[in-house]
């Protein structure tokens, strides 16, 4: 274990950007986790006399049209947005890995049927599909998670299927079968653990995308609804004030979104480079 840690430390030293991204992502998660204790103000309580104030020492990110402290709202929103993205991505990761692995292992009719469904999902512009799903199922947080998970699913299914498919006839798989392992056990105990590291890299890359997706849905009025603090809604509410020069209502949540996605993307790129140096671009 300590050897692994030392190796990770060595890799991170050689990759300052990845190390920085990892630090940033950790900081974000911690900020989100401890948001209720860090927030200087109540993120929902309005204070109309102090509405639309630019960033100052009292309000680091300014106040919005109801006088709510934007910095506190950003922190509260980080909690929600990260939770949505993390649940959606882990849901599609688990479901996609199992379905994809099973298809890649067995092949045949099930594989073809799943392949068709995946083709249909991929024939949609994915954001439009998510839009339609949230509208159909109702404006609730669970449904954003579900919609985001479903539009991520095809990538995980295809990935797991391809990775398992090329390994299904390898010696160690046959050895496991010859030892009397059931097919289920071969897939779950031998094949999946083998493809998991490569798939885990996808998680980090997908987290950023999932956050953008959830924020986009809220921005157009689907998903989380006001007054819940959420980055997409904060931008949508601030949009009305942009032409009067109140830039911080949009720029602050925009900055939060950008930094978060940046951290996850850089982290994902870095992890991928460690795993497969040929993919480096």
């Amino acid at each position, binding site marked *: 274990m300590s050897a692994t840690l030392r190796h990770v430390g060595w890799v991170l030293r050689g990759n300052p950007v990845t190390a920085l991204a990892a630090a940033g992502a950790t900081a974000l998660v911690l900020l989100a986790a401890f948001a209720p204790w860090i927030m200087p103000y109540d993120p929902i309580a309005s204070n109309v006399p102090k509405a639309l104030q630019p960033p100052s020492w009292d309000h680091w990110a300014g106040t919005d049209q109801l006088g709510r402290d934007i910095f506190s709202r950003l922190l509260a929103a980080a909690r929600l947005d990260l939770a949505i993205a993390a649940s959606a991505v882990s849901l599609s990761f688990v479901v996609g890995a199992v379905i994809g692995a099973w298809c890649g292992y067995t092949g045949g009719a099930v594989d073809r049927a799943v392949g068709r469904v995946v083709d249909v999902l991929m024939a949609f512009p994915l954001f439009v599909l998510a839009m339609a799903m949230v*509208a159909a199922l109702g404006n609730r947080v669970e449904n954003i998670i579900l919609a985001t998970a479903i539009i991520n699913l095809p990538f995980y299914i295809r990935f797991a299927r391809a990775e398992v498919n090329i390994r299904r006839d390898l010696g160690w798989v046959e050895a496991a079968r010859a030892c009397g392992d059931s097919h289920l056990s071969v897939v779950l105990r031998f094949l999946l653990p083998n493809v998991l590291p490569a798939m885990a890299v996808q998680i980090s890359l997908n987290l950023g995308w999932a956050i953008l997706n959830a924020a986009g849905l809220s921005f157009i009025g689907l998903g989380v609804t006001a007054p819940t603090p959420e980055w997409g809604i904060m931008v949508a509410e601030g949009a009305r004030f942009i032409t009067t020069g109140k830039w911080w209502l949009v720029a602050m949540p925009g900055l939060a979104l950008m930094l978060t996605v940046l951290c996850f993307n850089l982290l994902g790129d870095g992890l991928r480079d460690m795993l497969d140096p040929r993919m480096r671009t």
Partner: protein
Amino acid sequence: MRALRSAGRRVGGRLLASLPALFGVVVLTFLLMRVLPGDPAVFFASGPTAGQEEIEALRKELGLDQPIPIQLVRYLGDIAHGNLGRSLTTGQPVMTDLRRRLPASLELTFSALALALSLALPLGILAALRPGSLLDHAVRLVCTMGVCVPTFVSGLLLVYVFYVVLGIAPDPTGRIDIFASSRPEITGFLLVDFALMGDWEGWWAAASQLILPASTMALFVLAPLARMTRASMLAVLGSDFIRTARSLGLAEGRVIVVYALRNALVPVLTITGIVFSTMLGANVLVEKVFSWPGVASYALDALLASDYAPVQGFVLLMASIFVLVNLTVDLLYGLADPRATAA
């Protein structure tokens, strides 16, 4: 002749192969729309005081009193006749609405794609020529940032900088200032129409409305295009035939543009196809930010008003465009690399 016939067979084959996916899209959209909350008959009856009878009549007129499978069969039959139903919000057939609004969306998407490609290709090539240089790092930085800023934020910030602070952009709502000049109706693509009419003032007005939303979208897709160009060029530039071309004393420009770029194009084409489909989705956000009168904002308004038909029509349209784009990309492979046609 034979090449033409084989190309024709490829197109036909690809179109046939995409039919099941399109059919799946139709059925899935139909089902999704049918579980939408809210009864459109109640929503569109004359008002909250509408009587039960009126609602029933409207429901019968819309076919909502039939079981779901029958509604689906009817819907499929209607699509086969080119009838996408009627929008309850605008009162027009969905086909008419979509046809009227599609040029606005396509003009925006194509301008954004052209803008993104005209930046990404040179940047990617330059970065590949000097890997590790300052320019390479700058390109990487811009690309990495570009994908991280959601289009709805970058669009609003562009509005702030160019309209509010600098005051050089026109009012960021809609396509063109309706009072400035009469809009021609030839193709629906304003840039093309104004150019055809020789009305350059109008053309400039249309272009300046277009530039901010198009840049917003271009910024978002710049990264994958530039990165892929760089990676692909880097791989090609290291190959033997480039060394041979150089050793033969060919001009550097010729080596890069004719020999290297052409061989590097196939992966760039693939990513362009993928990027285009992302842009179809991003259209929704960009059209909302700029009140752009395209198909996406039309579908969004309908969606929020539980008006099924326009949303179904929109999704079907998007999926069809997507299929067409993939087909075009496929054919372009043949142009970029003739070996791809033989396979």
